[in-house]
């Protein structure tokens, strides 16, 4: 089996999950986005998105900040440097293998 195909076995399983990959890809394309924007853009349910964001925060790929805009609470999400590195590596591995 080619070494490039074998590398597929080593890809990050946290980021490989389709919903989390979508979240990370979106956050990579913007500077920051709040929970409501991510929910509408991805089409995920509130609970589903919350669970995936918690997982991504737990492993350090996403930073979450709770703030306010006037009286309206905002949950701002940003991709961390670690998250950007992991996504970049993921892209390279998938591209090489496919």
């Amino acid at each position, binding site marked *: 089996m080619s070494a490039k195909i074998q590398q597929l076995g080593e890809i990050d399983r946290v980021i490989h999950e389709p919903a989390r990959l979508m979240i990370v890809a979106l956050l990579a394309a*913007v500077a920051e986005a709040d929970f409501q924007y991510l929910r509408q853009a991805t089409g995920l349910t509130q609970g589903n998105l919350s669970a995936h964001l918690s997982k991504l925060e737990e492993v350090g790929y996403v930073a979450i900040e709770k703030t306010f805009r006037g009286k309206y609470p905002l949950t701002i999400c940003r991709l961390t440097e670690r998250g950007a590195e992991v996504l970049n590596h993921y892209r390279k591995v998938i591209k090489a293998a496919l």
Partner: protein
Amino acid sequence: MTNISQNIANQNPDVIASRLIQKAHNRDGLPEIFIGLAFLILGGLCWVQAVAPPRSAAFVAAVLGFIVLALLLGLGSPWAIKTVRRKFLVETVGFVEMKPVPRRRSIVVAAVALVIAVAALIAAWIGNGSTPPTAWVLAGTGIGGGALLILAGRSPRSVVGGVSMAATGIVLAFSGISLEPGFAILYGVIGLLLFVSGTVVFLTLITKPAESGE
């Protein structure tokens, strides 16, 4: 979960993200409202050019207004849309801060626009000021503009808008109408369509109860 999330592992995640962002950008109808207004005003200016005597004050004002509006639309509408969303719609559409456009990309886009403008001037000079037949210009504008609308919107209503613009351009081409009135009608029709569809989407969105964030 959307179909996109199911297919994301099979496609470039950057392309998927770009499509999701584009869909989100068009979700509240604001871009359509601004573009529709701009087309309506452009259509009005074209009509003034059609009826006013050449080189009259009204004619010159319409030409200058056309140029100024094009610049304002290009430079001002993204800021206007962002401001309206941040001030009034953050509970409904959420908050996003886009990454700044890389300076190199801005320079490349400006350089390409300059090359096209210079090429068009040279072509006009070589052609001794002769222009393609009016029908071709109207049909080409309708079809080209329609294609851009479909690509920019990537939604069913943008397809309707794009097809309408193409069809209007083709109908006007066969009608034998002259250039300025033809453009006035083309811009007026598409401007009205975009403005109305954008307004309907916007009103539907703001009257829907906003779901609370996390």
